[in-house]
């Protein structure tokens, strides 16, 4: 949800409200036709629907962003209302799991809000004992700007608990996210493309600390 998009949505909302006020209070109703009522009703209704879903998604706690990571709790659950179901489509395309089965986070920016790019080197630092808690597994997956897997010499497309990450002496875990292999840290390397990229973090059967929103995914930090 970029700033440009926010401006666009605000503009659509303003146009709809302006049109409705003008029609109700300032228009010459006697010269109107049923045809224009119907066409304008559909257009304004459509615009308001787009704005409503965006606004609903931005209400506190619906779509959440922490340390640059965006997620939405409670997706896909049977009791979800129609506004929530529509807002889910803003964040996750497709039939994603309920949170008890799997939680998903994505980011296209580092913890400071700068767009992730293969021209930079990044580090993701999990303090000792702070890997994503789960009863199945977790993974961190790389995608290019179009969300496609990224070619690389290792054919490594993700890292995670089972994929040979080597912890530091103090038990913490660093993931090196960059285009060129980090010398001496190849086992903890998640290869990035040369251009912009996005990251997906998935936790399957997440523990209570995730479901009750206590656990925070650490930020992706640019190495200078």
């Amino acid at each position, binding site marked *: 949800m970029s700033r440009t998009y926010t401006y666009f949505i605000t503009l659509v909302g303003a146009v709809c409200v302006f049109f409705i006020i003008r029609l*109700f209070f300032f228009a010459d109703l006697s010269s109107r036709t049923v045809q224009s009522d119907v066409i304008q009703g559909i257009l304004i*209704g459509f615009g308001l629907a787009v704005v409503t879903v965006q606004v609903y998604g931005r209400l506190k706690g619906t779509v959440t962003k922490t340390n640059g990571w965006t997620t939405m709790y409670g997706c896909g659950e049977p009791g979800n209302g129609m506004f929530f179901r529509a807002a889910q489509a803003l964040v996750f*395309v*497709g039939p994603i799991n309920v949170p008890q089965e799997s939680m998903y986070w994505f980011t296209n920016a580092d913890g400071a809000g700068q767009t992730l790019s293969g021209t930079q080197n990044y580090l993701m630092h999990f303090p000792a004992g702070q890997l994503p808690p789960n009863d199945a597994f977790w993974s961190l997956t790389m995608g290019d700007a179009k969300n496609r*897997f990224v070619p690389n010499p290792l*054919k490594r497309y993700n890292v995670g608990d089972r994929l040979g990450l080597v912890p530091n002496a103090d038990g913490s875990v660093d993931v090196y996210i960059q285009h060129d292999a980090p010398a001496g840290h190849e086992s903890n390397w998640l290869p990035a493309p040369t251009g912009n990229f996005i990251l997906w973090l998935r936790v399957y059967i997440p523990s209570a600390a995730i479901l009750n929103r206590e656990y925070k995914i650490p930020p992706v930090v640019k190495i200078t």
Partner: protein
Amino acid sequence: MPMGYEHLLIFSGICIATWLLVIYLVPRLMLSIYKRAALSQGFGDGPIPVNTLYTQPQNLFRDPLTPLPPGSSKLMNVGTNRDTLYVVGWLDLSRGSQVLHVPDMAGRYYSVQFTDPSKNINFAYVGKRATGTYAGDYLITGPGWKGAVPQGMKQISSPNNAVLVVGRVFVENDNDLSTAYNLAKQIQLSPLNQ
């Protein structure tokens, strides 16, 4: 009533109806892409017949950059995970109930998600978290189904005749891929009474 106020009524009615309808239809429109992907395009081996499950091929998992034949859907290898093999199918329960068979997964993580494509909600799960990893048979029935559930089967009642089924079978690493694939391949559907 002064002249012209009926125009405000017509406009308001159409406007509110459109507003509600569009919001209500968002999930359905989104998942219609998946319906088209499964039933019309397929994921590399042609369209998937209704009421059958398609297992993601091993080579596509091993190298998700493998080019697909023209016309096939990329939904299985763009923006997806590389932790699990996918099993995908679209059900039409108006043609009769279906039986989902899952093999003994020997403790392996897997899940089969049943999604109502009109609302994008998951009304049932089979899998390690929901039902355990032993072999089992599950009877999937549409709305208003009446009948006896065969012995040894558990019933899954769908709120809708259309069901999107997404299965995920965990792959530990490349050496584990063929084992995982052989298990994923055994997640199958068959019509009831056959």
